[in-house]
């Protein structure tokens, strides 16, 4: 049985956001699996976290940081991937973005102290 809390308070937003993500991811994921791009599908959102950390450091809306890093990551994988092993380039792009993210987070936590 669903409890009364299930559709009140913050829960409606959770249901809406999760449903939107599930549907979009389901449709996009079809192509990602078909094209064998599962690694890129994992790497880009993972690395985009660095953009969020950077935006937070600069005091900009986090969404912009996520968007910029996601697009930059995709372009990087596309540009380098045409000339070399695709999975290697994906891994290196991911790792660079995560390294930047670690730097951004450590700098902002230094300021916070």
């Amino acid at each position, binding site marked *: 049985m669903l409890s009364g809390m299930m559709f009140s308070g913050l829960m409606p937003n959770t249901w809406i956001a999760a449903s939107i993500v599930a549907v979009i991811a389901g449709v996009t994921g079809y192509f990602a699996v078909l094209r064998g791009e599962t690694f890129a599908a994992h790497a880009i959102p993972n690395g985009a976290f660095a953009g969020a950390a950077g935006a937070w450091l600069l005091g900009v809306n986090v969404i912009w940081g996520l968007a910029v890093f996601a697009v930059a990551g995709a372009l990087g994988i596309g540009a380098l991937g045409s000339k070399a*092993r695709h999975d290697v380039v994906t*891994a*290196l792009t991911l790792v660079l973005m*995560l*390294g930047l993210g670690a*730097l951004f987070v450590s700098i902002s936590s*230094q*300021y916070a102290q």
Partner: protein
Amino acid sequence: VLSNGPVLVAFLVGGIAAITSGVIGVFSVLRTQSFAGHSLADIATTGGAAAFLVGVSQFWGFLVAGLAASAAMEAIGVQRRKGRDIATGVVLGGGLGVAALFLYLGTQHTSRTGASFSILFGSIFVIAPGTVPGIIAAGVIALGTVALLAKRLLLTAIAPELARARGVSVRLTGLFFLMALAVVVSLSAVAIGAVLSTALLVGPAATALRVTRSPVRAMLVSASAGLAATWAGIALAYESYYWPPHGRTWPVSFFVVTLVLAGYLLTYLRRPRPVVPRSPHEGAECSPA
């Protein structure tokens, strides 16, 4: 710098992780298993989080989770080239979900919010000296496994049909390789963090394979490049204490990753070798011979 105990341990553990990752990385790049290598590192965070929750050394958590994940990937179908990245992705998704739960429970119990960050990005300056023998043993076991399987690994990567015809079990070889990979990845996850161990696994190996075609030479180049990046990264991180904003070091993983990537991009500056038609015997270095 060298009179500092934790820094010495960092140089030692970082060095071991760089060398073993460099050697195994050549095989995982040749076998197109960078995603598997990265996923095993990511999933190892599940074990790291569980170990944090139970209060055991993270090293054992990393190791057990990595081995379990490699077995799961093999069971789902990592051996077929086509299903490989899907099997990897499925296991990765499951592993990260469980990691999220463990991290949540862990921070609930201990109210240490820095846990997820240190598990993901590593804490090379706070490795307990007691875990060093375990790390050395794991490195030796993984390198030994790969040394024993080297010929089969190259053959099953380059010509699986030929390998099957010669009676090599492609599946068993793949499983042993994934397990060795899991051991190495958990090792370097302790050193530079679960996520960034991918950098040491893929970067130096890919760089080496762009410089030389011989697998043995590639392993040497890869291990030395990884070692150089790791040691220089640790030294720079130590030095960054005096950089702005003052009073704390920049993350080691940032320096290591940047150096690894710079090395890889440098190989693009070399003019591509003219393609000389090769005689069948010339390729012998890559074949099982």
